């Protein structure tokens, strides 16, 4: 059975309960301290010590059809706000706050797994991608192979760490800690096909309700990584959330790369032969 996450960012409230639950359950060391100045995000991104990361995007969305509502409704909302002196989200200068809990995508075609030279990274019986901490020797190849910048080496430890989709909890028939902690069900755990069907219904509903920017990210098994095990419903382009718009696993071009290296190796041999023969002539 292949399981995964469907992260519906439209109902994320930015509480970071997922980050905390993940840290507690997986006993991840503390990360950065300080003030980033990037909205409410003090985590910065995924890494060895952050396996869930809530992004906060502040946007000034022009009121009107581009904001997803008819002009009449906007005018009515504005009127109501002025009449009652109640500042609504819509009266607040058209500010839109996008929040999204990022996580390892558990790619169907996982670059990290392909390049891992020790076999430390493997695919579990749940279809997820996990690093075996007792095998990893910290070569760091997976760090550069991941198209999403998920994996990183832990300082002072030397090994590479990432989300395990709570492999240990799955074995006990429990959902991952982040999904259980999420108070709005923005993070949904389940069987991947069922999650994808649910996500398609949700995105259609949102679009018909006036959010034309709603889109699924990573729900298509025909994409560059064969579909994500953890996919998302976004309200803007992926790069706005710090995600690559069209990631492709580099292993797909590995055959031609090996051929190129062999060709160049042949050029080295030919060059050496030429250096000896050149003197004879």
């Amino acid at each position, binding site marked *: 059975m292949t399981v995964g996450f469907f992260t519906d960012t439209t109902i994320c409230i930015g509480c970071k309960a997922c980050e905390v639950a993940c840290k507690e359950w997986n006993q991840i060391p503390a990360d950065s301290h300080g003030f980033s100045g990037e909205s409410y995000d003090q985590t910065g991104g995924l*890494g060895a010590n952050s396996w869930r990361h809530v*992004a906060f*995007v*502040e*946007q*000034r*969305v022009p009121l009107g059809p*581009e904001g997803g509502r008819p002009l009449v409704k906007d005018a009515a909302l504005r009127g109501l706000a002025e009449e009652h002196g109640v500042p609504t989200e819509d009266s607040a200068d058209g500010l839109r706050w996008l929040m999204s809990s990022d996580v390892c995508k558990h790619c169907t075609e996982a*670059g990290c797994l392909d*390049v891992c*030279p*020790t*076999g430390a990274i493997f695919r579990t019986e749940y279809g997820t991608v996990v690093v075996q901490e007792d*095998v*990893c*020797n*910290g070569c*760091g*190849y997976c*760090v*550069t*192979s*991941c*198209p*999403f*910048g*998920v994996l*990183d080496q832990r300082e002072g*430890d*030397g*090994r590479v760490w990432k989300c395990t989709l709570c492999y240990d909890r799955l074995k006990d028939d429990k959902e991952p800690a982040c999904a259980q902690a999420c108070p709005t069900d923005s993070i949904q755990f389940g069987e991947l096909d069922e999650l994808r069907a649910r996500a398609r219904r949700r995105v259609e509903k949102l679009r018909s309700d006036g959010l*034309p*920017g709603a889109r699924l990210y990573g729900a298509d098994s025909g994409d560059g990584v064969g579909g994500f095990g953890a996919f998302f419903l976004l309200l803007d*382009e992926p*790069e*706005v*959330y*710090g995600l*690559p718009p*069209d*990631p492709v696993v*580099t*292993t797909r*071009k*590995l055959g031609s*790369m*090996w051929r*190129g*290296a062999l060709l*160049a*190796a*042949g*050029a*080295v*041999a030919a*060059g*050496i032969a*030429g*250096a000896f023969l050149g*003197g004879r002539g």
Partner: protein
Amino acid sequence: MSGRSYYGHPVVKPPVWKPEVPFYLFTGGLAGASAGLAFGASLTGDRELERRAWAVSLVAVAASPVLLIADLGKPGRFYNMLRVFKVTSPMNVGSWLLAAAGGATGLAAGHALLGWFGRSGQAAKPAAAALGMPLTTYTAVLLSNTSIPVWHEARRELPFVFAGGSVASAGAAAALLTPPERAGPARRLTLLGTALEACAVLLMERRLGELGEPYRQGTAGRLTRLAKAVGWSGGLAVGLAGRRRGAVIGGGVAALAGAVLERWSVFRAGFQSAQDPKHTVGPQRRRMEEQGSLAFSPGGIPQT
């Protein structure tokens, strides 16, 4: 290129590799090409050149695993590299290749320098040379098979950049150590390698276009310019030196330094390429637009 990003944060992670890695790119290439040069000299009966080239190859191939192990986060677990054989992992293939080339070079050098190992030493010479050829270029696959745009998009040229640098450095090292009258092939090899590297580097920069920005800016840009100035003039000097000892020494040292600098410029360019999200997002956006797979028009919503 598309300018939208999350507070300018990189999309992909910069490498965690340390300075040992670019030095290994140099020593691995030097070892492989020197083995080829040594075997060539053994075929033509150039004993003096052969012995020196095997010595260079042995020193370089012995230094390589030391550098690679020192770079690991858990050096004590280096042997896990040989726990599996995996063609999808250039690092794994490279570990096997380096182990085999190291063994063969040890036997071959022992035979050529000390008369040890008898027939197995003799038999190891072609094996060491054959394994040495891919040892000079597999590192290009190692770097290209990553999500670092400036490495991945240079996948066609990078093997030839490393091949040229390896050949030039092997030629230069042998030319430095061998009496001038026996070093003709080494000098010609230096010139050939430098020419190959120069062509490959120029082609790589040209084809990378906007993505090649790291080779023109910052630390990688400075290293690139220095590598060209030092390495190319050094290679040229060795090639045209004839039997003038001073020109060979000056040019040889410069060619070796140039080969090290060239590996460093590629290495540092990877960091700069990963740091800037536009290098990751831009090409993907363009590809989507070309394929018409863009589900939504690029938004024009400004960030606050």
